């Protein structure tokens, strides 16, 4: 069914009885041309672009739990393209362009809201670094506005500008950044893939790979063996475990990142604001809840829930930046498991096993990358070549020295 205003009117007048489930629940076939492991945002968008752009229809997406039940439903929904280094610059720039047309592309309301992302600087050094970053973004064709202290005050007058330790020196605004409805992104891609014949198979856990003569033959799953010409791993958070079944060891550690939401309040924060003191960032959801988060807890974790010190740290950062939020009550906190790569940037590449492909190591960048990561991974799997905007996310870059270390912290995943 094509969604339109007419459909809304028609169904509204007929008791909303015309809406149907938007994807099937098929039994797995014996084999597929392409099997994608992971029914999250990236896996679903990969399947969508494989079917849409590359005309491959015999595809299965295997999901251990339910579609969109992993990190695509656990993030803080921020979309932006204000990275610093080659590799990341052109990739996230392309991703933002895909975001801007995503609703028309999918005929699905992902509620993209380009409300602007503001990063704050607290000293001259940070401010200079922002000028550098902003120039990189402008040179890539993205938006960047370097703002002095008074310009920032006009935009967000409620911040604490005169904190003794972290006074606000200025900021870098990307007006095209913003937020999107995260679940809708997964659902929109799932619907689009299903409409093009992709089998979305839920409750199907991959237990092993069948590899013969260095080439992938299929996957062993909790619902039996499924043959495959090509297999793509798109399981950020669990990439190490899935890859280990194929005998691979990766430059990835898993860490837990917490996020928080308050009770709904009237509109107070128009933009996404990030505080240079730590990794604190905040926005307001369409329902009114203040959505915010901070750094990863700092040590390897698979527990999907965080520890108290980071809760305290994030609350302190919130109170330092905008004391008014102290009056709102925190509703929930949760944790997601991140693939923290050794340089803070992702991997979209072939693996040493012929026919087995890897999309992982997304650190904090996975949600905003959803459209471009799927498109790039589909391009790689269909053509064997890297897409123009994703040529540098190589698995062997750590061997060759071509790391993309935006934070400049070296091989310390807990510091990225």
């Amino acid at each position: 069914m094509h969604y339109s205003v007419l459909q809304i009117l028609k169904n509204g007048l007929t008791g909303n009885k015309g809406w149907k489930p938007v994807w099937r629940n098929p039994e797995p076939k014996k084999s597929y041309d392409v099997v994608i492991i992971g029914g999250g945002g990236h896996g679903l968008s990969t399947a969508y672009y494989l079917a849409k752009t590359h005309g491959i229809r015999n595809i299965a997406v295997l999901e251990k739990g339910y579609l969109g039940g992993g990190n695509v439903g656990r993030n803080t929904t921020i979309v932006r393209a204000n990275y610093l280094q080659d590799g990341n610059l052109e990739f996230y720039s392309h991703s933002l362009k895909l975001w801007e047309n995503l609703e028309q592309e999918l005929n699905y309301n992902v509620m993209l809201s380009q409300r602007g992302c503001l990063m704050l600087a607290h000293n001259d050094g940070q401010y200079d670094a922002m000028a550098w970053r902003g120039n990189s973004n402008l040179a890539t064709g993205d938006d960047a506005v370097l703002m002095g202290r008074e310009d920032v005050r006009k935009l967000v007058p409620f911040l604490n500008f005169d904190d003794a330790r972290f006074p606000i020196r200025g900021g870098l605004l990307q007006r095209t950044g913003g937020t999107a409805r995260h679940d809708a992104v997964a659902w929109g891609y799932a619907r689009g893939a299903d409409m093009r014949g992709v089998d979305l198979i839920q409750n199907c856990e991959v237990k092993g790979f069948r590899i013969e003569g260095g080439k992938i033959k299929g996957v062993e799953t909790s619902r039996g063996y499924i043959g495959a010409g090509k297999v793509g791993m798109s399981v950020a958070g669990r990439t190490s475990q899935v890859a280990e079944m194929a005998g691979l060891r990766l430059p990835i550690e898993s860490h837990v990142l917490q996020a928080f939401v308050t009770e709904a309040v009237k509109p107070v924060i128009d933009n996404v604001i990030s505080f240079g003191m730590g990794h604190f960032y905040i926005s307001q959801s369409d329902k009114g809840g203040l959505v915010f988060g901070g750094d990863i807890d700092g040590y390897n974790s698979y527990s999907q829930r965080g520890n108290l010190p980071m809760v305290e740290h994030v609350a302190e950062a919130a109170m330092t930046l905008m004391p008014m939020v102290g009056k709102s009550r925190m509703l929930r906190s949760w944790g997601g498991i991140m693939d923290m790569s050794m340089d803070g940037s992702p991997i979209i590449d072939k693996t040493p096993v012929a026919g087995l492909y890897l999309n992982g190591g997304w650190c904090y960048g996975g949600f905003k990358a959803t459209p471009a990561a799927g498109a790039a991974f589909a391009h790689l799997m269909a053509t064997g070549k890297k897409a123009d905007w994703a040529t540098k996310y190589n698995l062997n870059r750590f061997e060759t020295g071509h790391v993309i270390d935006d934070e400049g912290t070296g091989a310390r995943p807990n510091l990225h």
Partner: protein
Amino acid sequence: MMRAPALVQICIENGNMRIECPHCGDRDHREFEYLGSAKLLERPNGGDAAAYHDYVYLRKNPTGENTELWQHVMGCSAWLHIVRNVTTHEITEVKLARDLKEVAR
């Protein structure tokens, strides 16, 4: 009896991680800095690039017990070799890294 706010309750139930420092005793983990996998003690000898790539970048990243290096930065400054379950955060073994020096050199 008054119940703690929901979030605090969750944190109490999760239990805050504590580390038994051989010098200083039972301490909150906030006193410690995490470096990473204890494989960093096993620095390869010589100039084998592949071995160094493995040493610096590749990780086993297990879901259960992980051997790790922590430093008691806000205490005695000792480097600790710790065995910790990364799903439950249970710490089953703490040793001084210097006692494992024969591994390191």
